[in-house]
């Protein structure tokens, strides 16, 4: 099983600038449990998952911004959310994701 935190630590050790996204709340059906993590570097390379692939695109582009700004953000995706519907959380659940830079 993938240990995203160890990967993050290894990437930081290589001098890469990274951000860590963590699922902090879920409602209804959600493919990845609370605590699931995804690490992103400044080039958009990523490991891990915060959904079944539905919102990763949005999370990655936001994470790259956060690597530059250093300001953590909370993203929420769900069926009631126009934006989320566009990126497609088709399982019908709702998830809240905390994204922070490692710096």
């Amino acid at each position, binding site marked *: *099983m993938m*240990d995203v*935190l*160890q990967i*993050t*630590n290894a990437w*930081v050790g290589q001098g890469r600038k990274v951000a*860590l996204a*963590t699922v*902090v*709340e879920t409602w209804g059906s959600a493919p990845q449990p*609370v*605590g699931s993590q995804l690490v992103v570097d400044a080039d958009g390379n990523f490991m891990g998952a915060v959904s079944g692939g539905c919102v990763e695109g949005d999370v990655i582009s936001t994470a790259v911004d956060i690597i530059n700004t250093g300001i*953590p953000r*909370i993203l929420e995706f769900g069926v009631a959310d126009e934006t989320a519907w566009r990126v497609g959380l088709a399982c019908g659940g709702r998830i809240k994701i*905390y994204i*922070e*830079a*490692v*710096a």
Partner: protein
Amino acid sequence: MTPEILAEISAARKKRMAVALITDMKTGAQQIVHPDDVRGHALSADLEKGFRFDKSAMVGDHFVAVYNPPLRLVIIGAVLIAQSVIPLAQACGFDVTVIDPRGAFATGARFPDVSLHADWPQDVLPKLGLDARTGFMALTHDPKIDDPALDLALKSHAFYIGALGSKKTQSARRERLSALGFDDVALSRVRGPIGLNIGAVGSAEIAVSIMAEMIKALRLGFE
């Protein structure tokens, strides 16, 4: 998250030590909490629950992320059912250790991707330290090998203890273990016949039923 906090959590995981990370979602401030520091902490009840059930959760404005050590499965018996259980266990995130004093069974060719010990369980288990993140299975059918291992497993914090064998085998085993001084409460920790009853046929399906029982014990505790 600072690189220092990341490195500290990372080091704890390598040492099989549990830690929790509390993040204030309003400010981004973070604090590492070790299980020994839970008592007296403002979020002690939530931290305790988190460590026990391996669950991260929001508590008010704080996110409590639980980083428990990797799960571990110790199997006594380098037998066919062990070979079927191992890939399922590994897919579920378990580090697997196999112990069997019979050198013909415990070969690297038969068990390539595990920590393998061709020794008696009573010689190996004390060195491993069976903690609350460890599941245990006695699969040899041979009391000479299984019983001393079960004796040690029952004295440990292993979250799951399963023993292969029919109902008749189980009741004979129960008597032998009870002669070692274990009471009914202690003996009720031994799951046997091993596995959930899903009508499993053959070693692969039995492996599914055993894994289901172990995951149930991990996630729901014993009822």
